[in-house]
């Protein structure tokens, strides 16, 4: 009994001490609004790009767009100027922010915004919003982003987590504390041997670049990261749609007179079982119905036989031949959709 009571006493003491010191050290007031804090700075990158290039078509997406769509070829094939607004590693949360805080507020509005995605990304608001992805989001977010905060963070918290974020400084400031711990572990020892922060960060960037990765491991890492998208709950479109960024993106585009077009690009990922395959089929069917009701054209190339395994570098990224092939397919689809 005694050891446990001693432990309880010391843990309580520790909570009291950290409850006093953490708010001061990290300048956070408790109780606090759960979820991450965004700064007020917003990048104008795509506003400037829109105003400078004045494209008819803007393509939003992650690295699938970077390596999968040739905007110059697309412009030639469609007869409309196209521009890629691709951010590798991005997801629906960032696409929503770019649409809301950059595209619809630009002087030049494109005729169409084309979002290229795979499978359930559009209705997975919590996908890629933590860690380094948060830094990416913060660049395009204002201090108060109610929809983003709710859908990407708060809705996904359980009551325990919500309460701890709000009232427990140790938990509420955990990201700041971890950053400090990580920085100490990462930089302290090499700094003593002459390698400073810049040297370490540069090393990470250069050494762990995609080109240096073992292909099999890269595939495994992609598959593991994407597993989140194929959880049974995320394959249920009806339960996910209303809490995702999709309705907001449709509304923003409609109110700005921009035609939103959704494009599903094929991935070479094999479903883990038949149940998953059927669930995904059902999901795409529901998504298709929803977009039809919302007057948002849906170009589904998720099962397109013209895109073959030899057109891919890995399970999601097209190679040069695949890029040319898909750009051609997309151009045909866009001409039809924008008639």
């Amino acid at each position, binding site marked *: 009994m005694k*050891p446990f009571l001693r432990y309880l006493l010391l*843990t309580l003491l520790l909570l009291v001490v950290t409850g006093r010191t953490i708010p001061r050290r990290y300048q956070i007031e408790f109780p606090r609004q759960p979820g991450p804090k965004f700064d007020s700075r917003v990048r104008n990158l795509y506003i400037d790009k829109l105003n400078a290039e004045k494209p008819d078509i803007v393509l939003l997406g992650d690295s699938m767009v970077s390596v999968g769509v040739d905007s110059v070829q697309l412009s030639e094939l469609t007869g409309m100027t196209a521009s890629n607004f691709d951010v590798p590693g991005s997801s629906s949360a960032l696409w929503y922010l770019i649409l809301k805080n950059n595209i619809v507020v630009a002087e030049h509005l494109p005729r169409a915004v084309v979002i290229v995605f795979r499978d359930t990304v559009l209705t997975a608001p919590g996908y890629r919003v933590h860690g380094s992805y948060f830094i990416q989001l913060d660049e395009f977010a204002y201090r108060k982003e109610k929809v983003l905060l709710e859908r990407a963070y708060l809705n996904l918290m359980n009551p*325990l987590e919500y309460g*701890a974020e709000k009232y427990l400084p*140790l938990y509420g400031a955990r990201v700041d504390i971890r950053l400090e711990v990580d920085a100490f572990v990462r930089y302290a020892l090499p700094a003593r041997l002459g*390698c400073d922060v810049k040297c370490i960060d540069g090393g990470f960037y250069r050494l*762990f670049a995609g080109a240096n990765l073992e292909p099999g*491991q*890269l595939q495994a890492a992609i598959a593991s990261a994407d597993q989140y998208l194929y959880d049974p709950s995320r394959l249920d479109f009806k339960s996910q749609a209303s809490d995702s960024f999709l309705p907001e993106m449709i509304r923003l585009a409609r109110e700005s007179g921009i035609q939103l077009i959704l494009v599903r690009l094929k991935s070479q990922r094999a479903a883990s079982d038949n149940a998953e395959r059927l669930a995904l089929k059902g999901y795409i069917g529901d998504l298709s119905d929803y977009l039809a009701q919302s007057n948002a054209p849906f170009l589904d190339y998720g099962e397109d036989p013209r895109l073959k395994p030899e057109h891919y570098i890995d399970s999601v990224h097209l190679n040069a031949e695949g890029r040319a092939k898909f750009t051609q397919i997309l151009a045909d689809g866009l001409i039809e959709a924008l008639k």
Partner: protein
Amino acid sequence: MNFTDLTFWTFFALTLFAYWLIRDRFWQNLLALAVSYIFYGWASPWLAFMLGVSTLADFLLARGIRAQPGRTRWFLGLSLLLNVGTLAFFKYFNFFADDLAKTLDALGVDNDLLLVRILLPAGLSFYTLKKLSYMFDVSRGTLQPTHTLVDFALYVSFFPQIAAGPIDRPQKLLPQLETPRAWRLEYFYNAWTLLLMGLFKKLVIADSLKVMTDKIFGLEHPSIFLLSMGALAFTAQILADFSGYTDLARGLAWLFGFETSENFNRPYLALTPTDFWNRWHITLSTWLRDYIFFPIRRALMRSRVPLPAWLVLAVPPIATMFVSGLWHGAGWTFVVWGLYYGILISAYQLLGMRGEWRPKTAIGTGLAWLIMFSLIVFGWALFRAPSLAWLTAILFHAPFIQTRDDMALGLVAFSMAAFYASPLLIKLALDRFPRDGWFHAAYYALVTALIVVFLNSSSPDFIYFQF
């Protein structure tokens, strides 16, 4: 469901409450069995169905041995075929199918069926060994088969153990399952430190190190220095991950009123390979020792043809560790890793350094430890390498340090390994003192604070789930 999910803990708390509310042993076991099957079948009910069928088969086969002792070999053979066959099919189908498909493809034979991916059911390797030890012991007459299907099924599927052990023997768990039990505070006192340390090792140590080791072992051509540092970090990661899982499993079992086996006893302090395997994954080591090592050695010693002493000494460990390598995974890295330890054990034993061997001087002990620890780290490099070709290419062709980045990131990996291993070293030192003092309490309070800080919204699976 994972032991670090809130869903699991909610599910567990409700179950525990109902479990102790029921006073009757049979109904307690039935509830624990139902919960175990829900836990196991959470991802796919098919897994629970397969577990149920194979459990029923072994229960009946063991009863058959008891009823017809003359046909013991026949019943045991059938069980071996069922258990080893299932394990081999799920574990090695993909391994052999790829090569076979290529050969058939070259011959122009249709090979579509071979391209189907077979997923290994989590925990299959663990519960298969549990069932096999039951069958072996019943067939040897050292264990009476249980009359209650519920007890046997719970022994096989007990949810804290099913995914990654410990691989408890029937003699350890079955008598406890057959005994009436009522809630005692002692269960909680035995459980809380295990649960705390389990969560800490997994969430704070293993998950933090995983980020770096995955990166290094994901590189196509790392330098030898970077690989060494990655292997060092992985050495700490795998211990924290696996012993963390075991701590959680043991803690959860205590809350159900069961004492389960320890799996780790300061393995990195070992001075010889035999000593290491007496301390690492103890329940697997003893299983392999009792059912593979001893029978082979007995057979060699009783051989009608006189065999040289070195052969009798070398073959059993090599064969046993080869099986251990195969058990860990379908891949040449695991096979070679097993053989590596088999050869090391044989070599040490041939030099007269067995499990209990200790040098006479402190310097000698330090040197023996350093050599053994280096061999362990190299072993983990073999184990974690994506392929054998990858590892040999680095060992024989890569420079020690390629660029300044190698040096810098190697130091980061070393720094991470040292930083995250330090709480385990502190615990090791603390455990020399009485465990009910203030120091231990302060340590656990700090551990709790760190768990809170390191809690993430999602965490990767335990490494040992894949075996």
